[in-house]
């Protein structure tokens, strides 16, 4: 089916060229990082993870969000998701490739990355994260490809894909749970040390993933002849609504525990994020923007007339994507590191070079997504036509 990807309109090739240009620029900057080290980033001794790991965390969520179409379709035979299930799976593939790339660009010694395989260490959560992320990636590639191929040939997908599909469901939950465990198992970081972190990650993932998917459905309707179906998009928006409410609810639980107990180790981080600490308040406007966007998002999705408005829905989804991104990327990582274990406040902001490298990773993800979605759309068109 890959041959579909090399036949396209002029616009298609301009888009591909644009993505390649972004990737090229980022690669050039990455060469500099490779030679000179991570000194070119805004990361410091106190804030030792930054933009790369933040985006990694968010994209693990987007990948896990794909399961929100897999469960209704494969477990509940929800037919309306028939046409978009493949999109969810391919979105997961592109997101996971970006996740792995963000890990690689974050490493101080990327050429030694395979040491994780050479010296497998089960007591390290990073080892398990590697296992589930790669596992989920391969599951989605195999399932997505085989099911689409069967659809093209107008036969049933091979029987052996069924157990893999069922297996992919716990894997989806697993990738984000283990990613949360990277943070919430660390004794000295009060902000992350909470059992609600993994559930909160999942809730925000199930809001962000389907939101991205709805946006992609709008794009598909615009640039291809394939229509994912308004019914499916409406169901997705309801899923986003519930998940977003759960995310905000978990956050408010966190706020209650922190401020009612008044334990300073916990509160100092949230104080920093929302009110500033010792005069440092770079993230304050961001955090309030995030909260506002998520609250407005909930309102726009709860009221049926607003949720079912086709012009409004893409904007609602953009607000939710931005809101959850600030919440889980920017706030989650910086919030954990500031103040430092010695209660010093070192603020973090990514450098331009760091952002360019990150954009290149997004470019790579979008390239994969474009190719996979193009193939999917073409196959669906062929079958219908």
């Amino acid at each position, binding site marked *: 089916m890959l041959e579909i990807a090399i036949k396209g309109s002029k616009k298609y090739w301009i888009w591909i060229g644009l993505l390649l240009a972004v990737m090229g620029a980022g690669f050039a900057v990455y060469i500099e990082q490779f030679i000179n080290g991570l000194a070119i980033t805004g990361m410091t001794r106190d804030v030792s*993870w930054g933009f790369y790991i933040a985006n990694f965390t968010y994209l693990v969520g987007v990948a896990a969000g794909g399961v929100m179409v897999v469960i209704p379709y494969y477990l509940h035979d929800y037919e309306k998701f028939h046409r978009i299930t493949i999109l969810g799976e391919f979105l997961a593939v592109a997101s996971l490739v970006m996740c792995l790339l963000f890990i690689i660009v974050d*490493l101080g*010694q990327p050429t030694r990355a395979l040491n994780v395989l*050479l010296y497998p260490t089960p007591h390290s959560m990073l080892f398990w994260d590697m296992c589930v992320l790669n596992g989920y990636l391969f599951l989605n590639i195999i399932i997505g490809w085989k099911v689409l191929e069967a659809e093209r040939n107008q036969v049933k997908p091979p029987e052996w894909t069924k157990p893999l599909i069922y297996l992919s469901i716990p894997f989806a939950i697993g990738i984000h749970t283990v990613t949360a465990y990277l943070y919430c198992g660390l*004794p*000295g970081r009060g902000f992350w040390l909470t059992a609600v972190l993994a559930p909160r990650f999942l809730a925000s993932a199930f809001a962000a993933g389907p939101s991205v998917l709805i946006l992609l459905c709008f794009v598909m309707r615009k640039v291809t002849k394939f229509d994912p179906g308004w019914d499916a998009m409406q169901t997705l928006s309801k899923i986003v609504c519930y998940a977003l409410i759960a995310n905000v609810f978990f956050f408010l639980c966190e706020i209650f525990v922190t401020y009612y107990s008044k334990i300073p180790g916990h509160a100092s981080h949230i104080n920093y994020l929302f009110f500033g600490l010792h005069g440092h308040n770079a993230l304050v406007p961001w955090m309030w923007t995030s909260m506002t966007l998520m609250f407005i998002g909930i309102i726009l999705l709860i009221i049926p007339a607003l949720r079912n408005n086709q012009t409004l829905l893409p904007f609602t989804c953009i607000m939710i994507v931005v809101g959850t991104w600030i919440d889980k990327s920017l706030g989650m990582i910086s919030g*954990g590191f500031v103040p430092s274990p010695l209660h010093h406040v070192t603020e973090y902001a990514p450098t331009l070079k760091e952002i360019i490298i990150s954009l290149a990773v997004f470019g790579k993800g979008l390239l994969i997504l474009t190719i996979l979605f193009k193939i999917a759309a073409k196959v669906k068109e062929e079958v219908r036509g």
Partner: protein
Amino acid sequence: MKKSRRKFLKVAGISALGIGMTPAITTFASSESQGTGTVDAVKSKNAEVFSAKRWGMVIDTSKLTDAIAANITDACHKAHNVPDFNHEPDKEKFPKTSPVNHHQEVKWIWKEHFEHAFPDKEDEFLAEKFKELPFLVTCNHCKNAPCVQACPTQATFKREDGIVLMDFHRCIGCRFCMAACPFGARSFNFRDPRPFIEQTNSSFPTRTKGVVEKCNLCAERLAKGQQPYCAEASQGAIVVGDLENSESEIRQLLNEKYSIRRKQELGTEPSVYYLM
């Protein structure tokens, strides 16, 4: 090959027992002339120096002054080739050195005020004298080290004698250990450290960019029957010895005076004690 190097590190202490016995004694005999109380104490308990069930450190806060603390940091950092970002790189050897970000510095042992060394014990009515005292902080060589648990490649590992060590050649630079450490003891080489080493000590490795490092409790010196650099420069304020040996000097010190450890409530069991 990597396996054998690891093994070497692990048994280094033990093998030094046999080989290093005589030179170690002479080392102490010669350093005795410097007349520090610590060395005297160590000399009388030679067996303890060569091996320990669990190495620990006692810092007598009453004996530390700003000047001594600065000497300690200096002695440790110079001997271990820790880069000093205030050092102007040699323009001929390193022509293209970009400006430094001091927040990306490397440090193994350094001075903090009480409220930063013990943020959980912050107290507005704390005795004034403690507010001004220098508190030296470093790796605690925790019994339950979170960094060892977090490291995905076992580049950070715990030796049987309690010392938490780093294999600079295995570290992939993921910095998970830095997130895991509740004491901020670890530093990452954001850049090549070599331009910022004034005089390289050729008996200790320099590091490369992209790896994490921290205090190694002078494992290389303990293996030779020598006291760590910090203890040597401390004028008796720092004593290193076997925590599990009730006869050891540090156990006697802990018996005599009230001591605290950093963030005890986290259960990592730090091996560094502060006498108050």
